[in-house]
């Protein structure tokens, strides 16, 4: 990694490089060019063409840091990896972070401040009296942002928070249980039993990376039991051993039953036999594993249920061992959980003179009953700062393009509290403004520089000598000593009875979308085309209903239904999802955008049915067919194993047929991969990492519907007859006896000297025989010139080490051959062997559960070679004699 000083100069150097390159291009174009141009004779320090530079920084997700190392090619950020030095990330990332570079270069990002220029803007905001100013942000963990907000509040402004997938219930529960707001961290790695009541622990979210790692560690070292009760199938439910589908309104009773069995209060009547059994089993498991279990209750339940879970964990002795409370990482606004409501009420009352909406889209995401839009238009001066000119920007008087995290000087804290200084890899691409500079302008310091503002925050903390310490934290990407302090709190023994909703009609369950989240990623084509983990749908949101309900109402997948609740209706395509509770409908947030939507994106606006008081569950809903039908694009139309359970498990007799062809000889390397199906939670981080690493194009909804998606790595999802869900990442198998190599008439796919099944793009004429012969169907074909239909700005996103494929050419997973060759070349130059684990493929590097292990099978001490000796080890479709290089460890099923 380069020294930190270079990181600061990175943007300046980039300009010099571009100038130099432009000059090189113009040389020889006439006298003027040769007179005025600057030859690229002096190479800028720290930039070697062809060798990427790496910077430690962090991306932001809901205000929290996702610490990364960012790869920069000649000043262009192209790829992010988890920061291995971050105790929170430990080198892994989630799918959203992997898409961050695509957001940076998104062609829809807003290009200019409007209606005037920056000087005009500063004049306007400086004229606002601090007392009349309101600032609306998302969750804030940034110490610098908090410092600026505190200063503004001191001057009389008021700060409010609106986060569509917010933490209000958790905060309320914390106040109920402990009397104040604390954060709760689950040490899943120490658990023998995890009891989950509607809490998607392992699903997407700002803390996913750490939780999935914890879960994977627990699975590696023991066989922790995961029990889940939830109304709709989640990632966590999919990997649970014991899952119960229950409507949301009954879940508080379940929590109370568990508490009652453990001696906390009395249970209420009304549980079914299955629910009673599940609760007893959960209570028993928690009871016999004191200090080695967790009961966690999710935000869709009332705060009282969450508070009761705190009390249960304390009573069983989990608190302090597997459940740790810390001081909150996110700054709590003055009005706490009611912060947003207070703002809307004041705006509606006409008592707000000016509002600054910093990075949010509340016109789209606000609960329907608050009527944010009508309140907003009553404010005389409305300012919006964001990446996109979105629904909120359209209603505001001013819009300021906001810098992306890769252009930003700021600081963020990861969910465990560790802070990262966010440093830019590139100057703001579209004339965007950095957030601290916007707030400084509001404070009347229009010339302030974001870097200086952030340094000022850290000067007292880091102490003297500041400059070397500052360089060090920039270099490492982690500020030592910033992790959240453990809070010594005791759960109140006060009895907490949850309100139980009445049971008429269907229950609506709201969930953030697994790939576009609350809608913030809806303009990002990569994430639109990323298959949703459980449905493999792309470009669309559906209303998930139970297969039984679908059968009863005669609803086929894609049939448009009208859903009515609380006096409002929406229409949405229906989809029957195994594991859905019978009387519930799951609605996904994030679709139905009015502005900056992508052509082809379907779905509906679930926010229109969402209420401020119960944002996650809404009873008394009605559903009826409209008779319309829409085509949905799923990458996996068949999600049932159809009796082929042997695909995912070792077979007693892997009778390998003999081969006519002689065995290969691998004198040096034999690269291979083992994927542990027991650890995979289907999170998709690998899929987006592969896309970013290998220049994989987006093809659009209609092409996906035709079966032409280009992802080299797919994560299959299967349901079996027992109702269990299975994930299986499928990259190229790199077979020893590869049918594709035999089929290709022109030697365009050949066996490499180290066992790689190589694809020679410029030799390929497109017969597609290789794909016809591939039993795993991992090959992808350029049916059109897909590379040419990517946005122009995405050219900067491309990995220069990977060929951009032409029309009519086959492609597939290469095991990231560019990384293998780089590692080999570097090892040769340094006259050392290629050490196991010194590099890995993009998918393996991103994987939060470390389910994917890549290495040299010739090296008996490599991890991948060791895993091949595991009794769970098997090759998919071994009976065909393909002898795949990519092999699997079977999932462990408790009987």
């Amino acid at each position, binding site marked *: 990694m380069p020294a930190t000083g270079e990181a600061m100069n990175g943007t300046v150097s980039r300009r010099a490089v571009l100038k130099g390159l432009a000059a090189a291009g113009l040389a020889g174009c006439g006298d003027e060019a040769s007179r005025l141009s600057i030859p690229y004779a002096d190479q800028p320090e720290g930039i070697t063409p062809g060798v990427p530079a790496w910077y430690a920084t962090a991306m932001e997700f809901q205000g929290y840091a996702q610490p990364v190392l960012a790869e920069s090619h000649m000043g262009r950020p192209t790829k992010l990896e988890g920061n291995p030095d971050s105790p929170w990330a430990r080198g892994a990332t989630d799918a959203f972070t992997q898409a961050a570079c695509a957001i940076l270069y998104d062609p829809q990002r807003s290009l200019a401040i409007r209606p005037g220029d920056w000087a005009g803007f500063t004049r306007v905001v400086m004229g606002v009296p601090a007392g009349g100013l309101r600032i609306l942000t998302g969750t804030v963990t940034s110490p610098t942002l908090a410092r600026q907000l505190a200063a503004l509040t001191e001057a009389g402004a008021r700060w409010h928070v609106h986060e569509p997938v917010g933490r209000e219930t958790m905060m309320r529960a914390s106040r109920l249980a402990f009397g104040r707001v604390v954060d709760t961290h689950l040490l899943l790695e120490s658990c023998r039993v995890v009891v989950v009541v509607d809490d998607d622990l392992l699903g997407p979210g700002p803390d996913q990376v750490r939780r999935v790692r914890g879960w994977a560690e627990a699975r590696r070292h023991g066989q922790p039991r995961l029990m889940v009760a939830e109304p709709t199938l989640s990632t966590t439910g999919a990997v649970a051993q014991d899952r119960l589908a229950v409507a949301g309104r009954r879940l508080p009773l379940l929590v109370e039953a568990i508490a009652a069995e453990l001696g906390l209060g009395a249970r209420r009547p009304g549980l079914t036999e299955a629910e009673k059994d599940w609760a007893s089993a959960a209570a028993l498991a928690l009871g016999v594993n004191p200090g080695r279990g967790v009961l966690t209750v999710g935000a869709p339940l009332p705060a009282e249920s969450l508070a009761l879970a705190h009390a249960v964990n304390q009573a069983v002795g989990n608190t302090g061992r597997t459940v740790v409370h810390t001081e909150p990482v996110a700054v709590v606004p003055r009005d706490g959980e009611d912060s947003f409501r207070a703002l809307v009420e004041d705006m509606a009352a006409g008592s707000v003179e000016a509002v600054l909406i910093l990075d949010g889209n509340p016109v789209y995401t606000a609960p329907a009953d608050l009527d944010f839009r009508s309140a907003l238009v009553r404010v005389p001066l409305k300012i919006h700062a964001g990446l996109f000119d979105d629904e909120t920007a359209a209603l505001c008087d001013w819009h300021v393009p906001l810098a992306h995290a890769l252009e930003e000087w700021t600081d963020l804290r990861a969910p465990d509290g560790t802070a990262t200084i966010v440093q830019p890899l590139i100057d703001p691409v579209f004339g965007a403004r950095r957030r601290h500079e916007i707030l400084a302008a509001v404070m009347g310091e229009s010339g302030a520089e974001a870097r200086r503002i952030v340094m000022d925050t850290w000067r007292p903390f880091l102490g003297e000598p500041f400059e070397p310490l500052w360089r060090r934290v920039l270099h490492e990407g982690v500020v030592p000593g910033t992790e959240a302090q453990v809070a010594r709190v005791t759960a109140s023994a006060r009895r907490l009875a949850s309100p139980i909703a009445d049971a008429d009609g269907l229950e609506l369950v709201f969930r953030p979308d697994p790939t576009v989240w609350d809608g913030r990623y809806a303009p990002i084509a990569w994430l639109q085309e990323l298959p949703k983990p459980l449905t493999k749908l792309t470009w669309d949101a559906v209303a998930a209903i139970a297969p039984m309900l679908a059968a009863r109402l005669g609803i086929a997948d894609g049939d448009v239904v009208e859903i009515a609740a609380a006096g409002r209706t929406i229409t949405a395509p229906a989809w029957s999802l195994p594991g859905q509770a019978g009387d519930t409908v799951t609605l996904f947030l994030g679709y139905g955008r009015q502005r900056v939507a992508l052509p082809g994106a379907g779905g509906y606006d679930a926010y229109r049915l969402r209420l401020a008081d119960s944002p996650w569950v809404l009873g008394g809903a009605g559903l009826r067919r409209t008779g319309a039908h829409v085509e949905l694009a799923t990458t996996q*139309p*068949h999600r049932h194993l159809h009796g082929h359970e042997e695909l995912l498990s070792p077979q007693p007799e892997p009778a390998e047929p003999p081969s006519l062809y002689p065995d290969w000889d691998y004198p040096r390397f034999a690269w291979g991969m083992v994927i542990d199906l027991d650890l995979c939670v289907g999170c998709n981080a690998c899929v987006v990492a592969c896309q970013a690493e290998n220049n994989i194009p987006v093809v659009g909804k209609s092409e996906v519907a035709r079966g032409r998606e280009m992802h080299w790595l797919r994560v299959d999802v299967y349901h079996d007859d027992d109702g269990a869900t299975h994930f299986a990442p499928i990259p190229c198998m790199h077979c020893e006896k590869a*049918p594709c190599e035999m089929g290709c*008439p*022109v*030697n365009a796919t050949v066996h490499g000297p180290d066992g790689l099944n190589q694809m020679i793009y410029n030799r390929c004429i*497109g017969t597609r025989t290789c794909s016809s012969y591939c039993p795993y169907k991992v090959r992808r074909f350029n049916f*059109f010139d897909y590379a040419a239909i990517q946005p122009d700005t995405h050219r900067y996103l491309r990995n220069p080490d990977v060929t951009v494929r032409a*029309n009519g050419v086959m492609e597939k997973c290469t095991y990231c051959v560019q990384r293998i060759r780089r590692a080999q070349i570097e090892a040769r130059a340094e006259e050392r062997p290629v050490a196991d684990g010194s590099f890995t493929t993009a998918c393996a590097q991103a994987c939060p559960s470390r389910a994917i292990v890549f290495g040299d099978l010739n090296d008996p001490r490599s991890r991948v070679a060791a895993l091949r000796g595991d009794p769970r080890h098997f090759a998919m479709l071994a009976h065909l004699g393909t002898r795949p290089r990519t092999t699997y460890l079977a999932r462990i099923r408790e009987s």
Partner: protein
Amino acid sequence: MARHPILPPRQDYAMVTAEVADVAHNPVIRRRWWLAMAAAVPLVVAFLASTGLLFWLGTGVWGINIPVNWGLAIINTVWWVGIGHAGTLISSLLLLMGEGWRNSLNRFAEAMTLFAATMAGLFPILHLGRPELFYWNFPIPSTFGVWPQFRSPLAWDFFSFVSYVLVSLAFWYVGMIPDLATLRDRSTGAAKAVYGALALGWRGSAVHWARWRQAYLGIAAAAFHLVISVHSGVAMLFAGGPIPGWHTTIFPPYFVLGAVFSGFAVVIMLAIGLRTAFRLAPLITMRHLDILGRLLLATGLLTLYAYLADAFHAWYSGDSYEIRTLLDRVGGEYAWSAWTAVTLNFGAIQLLWWRRPRRSQAVLFLAGLSVAAGMWFERYMLVVSGLYRDYLPSAWHTYDATLWEWLLFAGTGGVFVVLFLLFARWLPMVSIFEVKEELERRG
């Protein structure tokens, strides 16, 4: 050996010559020719349009995908090359076996072979992602220094296709030389010069005939092997991959039988069409049609046997994937293609057990049409039901051909008809000298 009178009794040499050579001068026949041409030319336009769009945008204009990345193009190529087979079989095998009745049929059957094989050869090139590079299949020491991949069935397919087209062309042309000389002698002006050049100075001397006979039989022997090898090669293209429903050793004979079966069907249709439209009834007699009907029935029954053997072995293997593909074929998404194939292929031909239907032009024509269509559906079934569900359920996906695929298919039909009409107009459709030979033999 006493021969059945296959030609009508009152034929003589002059009549035979006139019947074949004067087709172009008969006003009624000319009008029919132009009508047929008018019907075919729009299809040629469709061919050019669908090919142009394909080259402009890529194979994505078709409905193919992953996993069904071979669609109508491969189905059509197998179908067209199958049709071609009967021509070569009639010409070469029956020539070598001395079956004189072939002499009325071989010329146009060979033309059909040549044109059908050309259409068949177009599709594998058009279906390439980068069709301009098809020649990389040639085993030529190119500047790349890269040879074709000789383990690939596709490489051998390419070689056998190219040989087949070239040998068919040579066979057709060499066989036509004496007749071209006849046309030369009967024409004037520019036509005389062209026919003269094509006739290569044929004077009908005994030495000419001896040399010609050597060459003709030699090519016939080579061509006969190609009948087996070309369609076996096509079959290996499927059987070579470890795909359920494809990966079986019965495929080569299965494909060759099916090919000859469909070829006879088209020969019957063309024979009836020619003798009706171009007044060739005295040369292509009901007796010819009767023989063709029997052959169609025989090859049909052999093909049926191949179907049953294929299905039996899928079941007998006990392999769950093979069995599932078998069940998919008879009951899955594309079961219609299998059942249409079985019905069309083996329904109508059952009439041909009896003499009366065999001697009815209408019945025979419809039986031929039924088989030609049925064999197309059979190829659809084989290609699509093999690919749309192979092993991993996650990779299953259906396939629907787009308008452009259908237009291209129809377009090749148009090109075939136009080529055939040009042949009928300018070249001797029936071998004049061989029919005379047959008359001579009968005495």
